[in-house]
């Protein structure tokens, strides 16, 4: 069976017929992450707590998350910590077949706002 089928789009200035994969902006042989839903959740508390989002899929999906603390305008990557302003907050997310769970920890009471991007694509 020929592999010469499908759709390729090359980057500007590159011949699509000979372009290496890294020089292609799209190749139908490679899966694209597909965004199923995005949203915000928040927690205004102290110490350790879980915040959950039901994703409605029957498998563990790929996801991304970022968070900010007390509307500070700095959006941190998941797993990071905001200790730049004297506080200490972190968000560690994980997924199961039903929920994305965000494990939130903060020293002192802080409003932690979380942005999540849920993908159609399974994370396994």
């Amino acid at each position: 069976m020929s592999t010469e089928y499908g759709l390729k789009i090359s980057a500007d200035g590159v011949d699509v017929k000979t372009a290496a994969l890294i020089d292609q902006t799209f190749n139908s042989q490679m899966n694209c992450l597909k965004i199923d839903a995005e949203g915000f959740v928040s927690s205004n508390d102290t110490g350790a707590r879980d915040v959950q989002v039901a994703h409605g899929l029957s498998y563990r999906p790929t996801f991304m998350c970022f968070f900010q603390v007390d509307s500070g305008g700095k959006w941190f990557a998941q797993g990071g910590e905001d200790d730049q302003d004297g506080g200490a907050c972190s968000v560690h997310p994980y997924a199961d077949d039903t929920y994305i769970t965000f494990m939130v920890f903060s020293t002192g009471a802080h409003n932690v706002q979380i942005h999540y991007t849920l993908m159609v694509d399974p994370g396994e």
Partner: protein
Amino acid sequence: MSTEYGLKISKPGFDVKTAPPTGLVFSSQFGTPRIQQRGTGVIKQSTGRTATIPHNLGYVPKFLVHGDIPNQLSPGDWATLPYQWVAPFFDYYYNREAHSITCWADDTNLYIHVQDAFGYTFIPAIDYGLSSSLLGYWQNFAAIGESIPTWGDEDAALRFDSVPIAQGATIVAAEVGYYCSDVNGSGNVKCHLYGIDEDNTADFGSDPFGRSKTSAVSTIEFGTGRHNGDVARFNIKDQLQEVVNRGGWASGHNFGLFFIGDSLGDAGTEIVDGAADFGMSHIRYLLNDTLLNYKYTIFKDRIV
């Protein structure tokens, strides 16, 4: 309105007309992350611990950052950032939030920050020495300033064993962290800070205060209003470099410091640390200027 519009491409083995979303490599019904810009960079101790990368989007974008971290990962291995490091216990106690690499974005820039203590090698003090008019060097604790009311001016010595620095190695940065386990008084304490100028500083089982001092010396101040539990940090780069440059120095040898009052002023204040009290003073040093090699991807997709 029909939903039968747009573009779908199925994975091999799936009928594109009936494939579920997980059977598609692309569907115009779903958004997909789009890349705005990518790049690489280096964060060094000598040039500051924060990289600031403009994205010119006017909103806060999603991003990914990966790092090659000397002395933490094998060469050529890249970790997804942020990255957290478990600090040694004596530092974790008071400095536990300062051992990570963090990254964040606002509506102007992406930032990658290597926190204060990340990258340093820590060595706890193993011996504490005290010189005063009434108490001797064997007291197993250190005190600087003026012991009140009767013991007079005090000098301190600290020893750090098994320092893994090769002879002649370049010290990029080095500090002593003097743990103020017991502060009596609130005034400023000034003193001279020397290295003990020896190839391999022996323990303080005998009076250490007659030993040779480095020519490298600095005048330090603990400052007013010190509290129990404070850590006073002082630069010892030149003192450590002088000792490491000695011909008889070798990796694994022991290093020492003197805090000598020299009548510089103690404002009726005594600052104590030592095994008899708590004992968490330490040195920390950097041998590599490079703290992080990073690669980043900023997406067009917005967070807010």
